[in-house]
């Protein structure tokens, strides 16, 4: 069975697993914020791309972030199908690499792409501007890299583990 046939056959459960992994990751990240481990809120950062209204940004951010989590889950599944291996530790490894990319590349680039974020090279203009995350998100608290990595690792491990449990993608064609 080809990868596309596999995806077509298992799409409902893949979507469900993507949602479960996204919920697990979001719970860790938001829980870390609530427990005072980090001030980072990825959904809020995403939401403020679209609106300056704090309330709307939070709601929009959660919707877009959840859809994004689903989308990334499909990329993880594609990777599992491509190499014909899917298990929790491979998922966790992917999540780890994903987290490193997020912290080391994506977050530091955010001030240059985000319409409502201060760059570290200039001050804010006329409007209110979000505090930039800094390298590895350290501006949002010293534990931010740890909580972010934990969230990403749990996300990947959940996706890999569910595939492993259901025996999906094992030996799938590359």
């Amino acid at each position, binding site marked *: 069975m080809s990868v596309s046939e596999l995806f077509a056959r298992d799409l409902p459960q893949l979507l469900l697993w993507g949602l479960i992994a996204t919920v697990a990751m979001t719970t860790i990240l938001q829980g870390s*914020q*609530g427990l*005072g*481990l*980090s*001030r*980072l*809120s990825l959904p*809020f*950062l995403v939401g*403020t791309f679209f609106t*300056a*209204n*704090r*309330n709307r*940004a939070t709601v929009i951010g959660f919707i877009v972030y959840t859809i994004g989590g689903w989308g990334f889950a499909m990329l993880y599944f594609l990777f599992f199908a491509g190499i014909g291996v899917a298990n929790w530790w491979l998922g966790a490894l992917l999540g780890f690499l994903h987290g490193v990319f997020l912290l080391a590349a994506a977050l530091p680039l955010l001030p240059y792409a985000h319409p*409502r974020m*201060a*760059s*570290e*090279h*200039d*001050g*804010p*203009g*006329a*409007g*209110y*501007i*979000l*505090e*930039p*995350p*800094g390298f590895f998100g350290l*501006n*949002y*608290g010293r534990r931010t890299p740890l909580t972010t990595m934990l969230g990403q690792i749990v996300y990947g491990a959940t996706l890999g583990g569910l595939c492993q449990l259901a025996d999906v993608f094992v030996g799938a064609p590359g």
Partner: protein
Amino acid sequence: MPASATRRYLPGSNVLETTFRTSDGTVRIVDLMSIPGERQFQPMREVLRVVEGVEGRVPVAFEIDPRPGYGRMAPRLEARAPKQWAWVWRNECLYLHSDVALQPLGDGLVGQRVLGGGDRLCSSLAYTKADIGVIAPLEAAAQQRVEDTLRWWQTWSSQARYQGQYREAVVRSALALKLLTYALSGAVVAAPTTSLPEAIGGDRNWDYRYCWLRDAALTMRAFTGLGYLDEARGFLDWLLHATRLTWPELRVLYDVYGRTEFEEEELAHWRGFRDSRPVRIGNAAQAQLQLDVYGAVCFAAREFVNATGALASDEARLLRGFGQSVCRQWQEPDHGIWEIRGEPRQYTFSKVMCWTALDVLVDLSKNGRLKLPSAARAARDALRGLIETRGYNRELGAYVAVLDGATIDASLLLIGCLGYADPADGRMRGTFSRVQERLARNGLLMRYEPGFDGFAAPEGAFGICSFWAIDNLARRGDVHEAHRAFQHALGFANDVGLLAEEIDPDTGALLGNFPQAYTHVGLINAALALEPQ
């Protein structure tokens, strides 16, 4: 360089303006907590300072050295961008965005500028907890925030219904009360400070950053009397819903969220204000039994109902529960309105407030707003009998602080203010006279006689007690005397019209935590009582 400073609030607002005059010129500083407009992302909290040269050329030094966590935290200072600095600790962040060129010195920042006429420097200090910080803009946008905040306060204060001759003092008190109101819950804290001493060098140093239910009755009367019904609604909501965790019983004090678990702790590394130790955080009074709080909460609810006609069925059910608690406990000794430590006693005022609680419920039950607890009427009548026999001393011709006692307590004046007795009645007149004889000093009132609370250190006159006396005078028709006493009491306010918990009757110095909501509540209610009905 020698400088003289004068302060004022910009009219009708909580925007503070301080003007420094030196031999070289004049500089003006405007300080405010900015009020967010629409729900744009703005700092969680922001203090904005605008320093402006008025004339001449004046050297100005800038210094900031935050000490979070009572000086026990070591914040990490980070240079974030040009003009931007952050102090970070735990999940909290203090973000400074300033026009001033600053240099690190230790954990703080310092800078210097010479300001000429027309020069203007803005500094925004924003606090964030558990969230991504927001950096507030400076220059014209900061000036816009000053104007927006000023307009917001002036609109709010213009709504005060009182139009009498003391409007300026009453509006200032209302503005102070609004600053002491926690916007997220409607709670009103007693004061924003801890451990400002009740006597310089003394040990009566308490943490007042909590909400005392004792204050509820008169606070609600102040809100409704001035027509601030939104604040009254918020306050009643907080009273009834924040106390659900302990319902149907009430504690002495709660925090702004309704929590009661806060231990009292002494900060040994703090010297205290003018060496007045100890500095305390938390408040052990929360463990006491104080029966007057039931009357205070029920009275507050009736004030609100009288002003708005509104009482929801679940609120009526909560009040009924408080009534049941009173029926169960009114015979118990307690620690009284002044939270006197040591053995509980049978305080007359606590009995009066138990009577008040039940009387309010009887009143509200008459038009079917709530179902009266079965024992309420009998308990109310028994309480009146007890107060009139054992709470009144015939030899003194006055109500007394403790049943069968002979000591006098200024809280007995509230018997006339809260409707238990008519201030013009003979027993109240006698009580008023005894209070004046024993507790008055320089036209102010001590709250009780020396040694009554077991503390050796002296204390000042208790601010609100003088206003209770004025309230009694006004209600019994001694209006001229009431005006004279009111003007005398007003004379003790500081340069911007604020009052503390206590006043040194000899020097006029303000003592205790500052500014004190209860004192300003007393001022508002006394002014309202002086208005022709």
